[in-house]
């Protein structure tokens, strides 16, 4: 049987550890030189990967919790401190961000998603213990404005202004979460962690699927905006071809964000950083001062 590796893991070579291959592939794809970590031969540990994921979960948890309750997750009782005691960062968000929902099913789903993302934060914090990073500074205001400009949607965008805007704001994260977990899964060495990461990946894909369906149902303006965002994400990560919008393709809907083999897209950590930094190298957009941890 032929393995599938060659198609999927750019840069993998026989006899070379997958982790090294992924790092090389990621660097090559992002057009970057080897990082100082790589040149120092510091292996990416499972702790590094899980902390990378924890940063993204902080972002998602804050967004959904603010959208559904008007509160931050720390106001809701979750810890944003590091496992070693480091204090959590700040969240920049407009006043009164709670979305005015008029569709009960959408509100219920938003609340479910907020709970899921909070659970992911808590789960990762527990798994990481003293190694867990604190929440970095998060920006949920200027970030959306910058991404809206990048996507050609105008100079400003308020994801808390309406149900449709909320869906589009959620859309920005969810598929990225899927690609991030898919890319990171290959870096995880402990089987038990891999299993958990796969389970979180599936949950992010559930979220993404439901959000994309609701955007499809919201009509052509929402679809068009989502497609512009998808194009911007693909552009930011340097590939131009690893994201598809919401709409129709040859008579079929495009609810699933996947390649021609119907396999969901994957992003390297470097590509994910480019997206959440809005193209920045050391921070920007959602994480104005960068992520916490070693992968940043």
């Amino acid at each position: 049987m032929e393995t599938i590796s060659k198609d999927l893991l750019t840069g993998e070579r026989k006899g070379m550890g997958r982790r090294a291959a992924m790092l090389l592939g990621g660097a090559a794809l992002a057009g970057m030189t080897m990082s100082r970590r790589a040149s120092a031969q510091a292996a990416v540990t499972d702790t590094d990967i899980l902390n990378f994921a924890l940063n993204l979960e902080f972002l998602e948890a804050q967004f959904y919790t603010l959208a559904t309750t008007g509160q931050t997750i720390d106001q809701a009782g979750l810890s944003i401190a590091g496992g070693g005691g480091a204090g959590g960062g700040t969240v920049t968000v407009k006043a009164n961000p709670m979305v005015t929902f008029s569709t009960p099913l959408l509100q219920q789903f938003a609340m479910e998603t907020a709970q899921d993302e909070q659970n992911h934060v808590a789960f990762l914090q527990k798994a990481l213990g003293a190694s867990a990073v604190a929440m970095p500074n998060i920006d949920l205001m200027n970030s959306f404005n910058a991404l809206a400009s990048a996507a050609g949607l105008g100079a400003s965008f308020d994801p808390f202004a309406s149900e449709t805007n909320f869906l589009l704001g959620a859309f920005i994260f969810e598929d990225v979460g899927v690609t991030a977990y898919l890319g990171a899964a290959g870096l995880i060495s402990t089987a038990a962690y891999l299993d958990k990461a796969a389970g979180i990946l599936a949950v992010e894909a559930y979220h993404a699927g439901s959000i994309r369906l609701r955007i499809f149902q919201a009509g052509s303006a929402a679809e068009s905006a989502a497609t512009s965002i998808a194009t911007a994400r693909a552009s930011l990560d340097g590939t131009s071809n690893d994201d598809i919008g919401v709409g129709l393709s040859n008579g079929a809907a495009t609810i699933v964000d996947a390649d021609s083999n119907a396999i969901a897209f994957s992003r390297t950590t470097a590509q994910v950083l480019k997206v959440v930094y809005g193209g920045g190298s050391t921070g920007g957009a959602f994480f104005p001062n960068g992520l916490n941890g070693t992968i940043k």
Partner: protein
Amino acid sequence: MEKLHEFARRAVSRRNFLAGLGYTAGTAAAVTLAAGCGSSGTMTTTPTPPTTPTITDADVLNFALNLEYLEAEFYLRAVTGSGLSDADAGTGAGAVTGGAQVPFKTTALQQYAMEIANDELAHVRFLRKALGTAAVSRPAIDLTNSFNAAATAAGIGSMFNPFADESSFVVGAFTFEDVGVTAYHGGAGLLTDKGNLAAAAGIMATEAYHAAEIRTLLTQLGGNYLTYANQISGLRAAAGGGAEVTVAGNTIVAADSNSIAFDRTTDQVLHIVYLNATPGVVKSGGFFPQGMNGTISASAS
């Protein structure tokens, strides 16, 4: 952190552990592995020759291929009225019973169905190509008696035709989708090649997109169709080791209390698709009247 690292270091990998649970003939072997997992990790029992058949990546991918054949046949027939081509079904493929073009009235639903049909066809082709000559052909598939039996077992009624109308179709689709996610999630732990793992994880994500789509549509449909779906969910839970949450507006995601999606062993998946909740060896039934093709085709427990 340390705890889980230790778990892994104890030399009983999840893969071996699951393989032991799923594929050894005797409970004793599974118990031995479980004991090894829970104690100091040195397996000092009498050295008996290992009886666990080695599960290869090809075995796992072929297991997945059987499920993809089932999904592809269901969705392709629902959308186009005909199923996989002979080339896509493989040499000596089994017959398919039932399945018909759904008289869609809502354009969007037809568009969703068409996307999923395309996706499942792409999965069949991808797995067949990846497996090459090792790919199993399509087993016999039943899309008529299976749904009737499921409906009976779930308490819906003596007959259920998922091709009768578009709402019934959504319930029919629900029968498969979350199961696919749990099957790939469980199967991922059995794969040894990292490339295969990446592909399986990517397919799992696609199945989760589908599952969320179907579950969301069910909450929007409401009424009897939502009730039927949850009766099917109950049936899956009974046959497949739980791993279900009631579909509702605030439970679109099928996941545990940590918001981590469920997984199932191959045994549990077999019990579901064979529509047989009785513990023990089950080799066929339900959607696969002559069983699946490949080495993972009979439940061990």
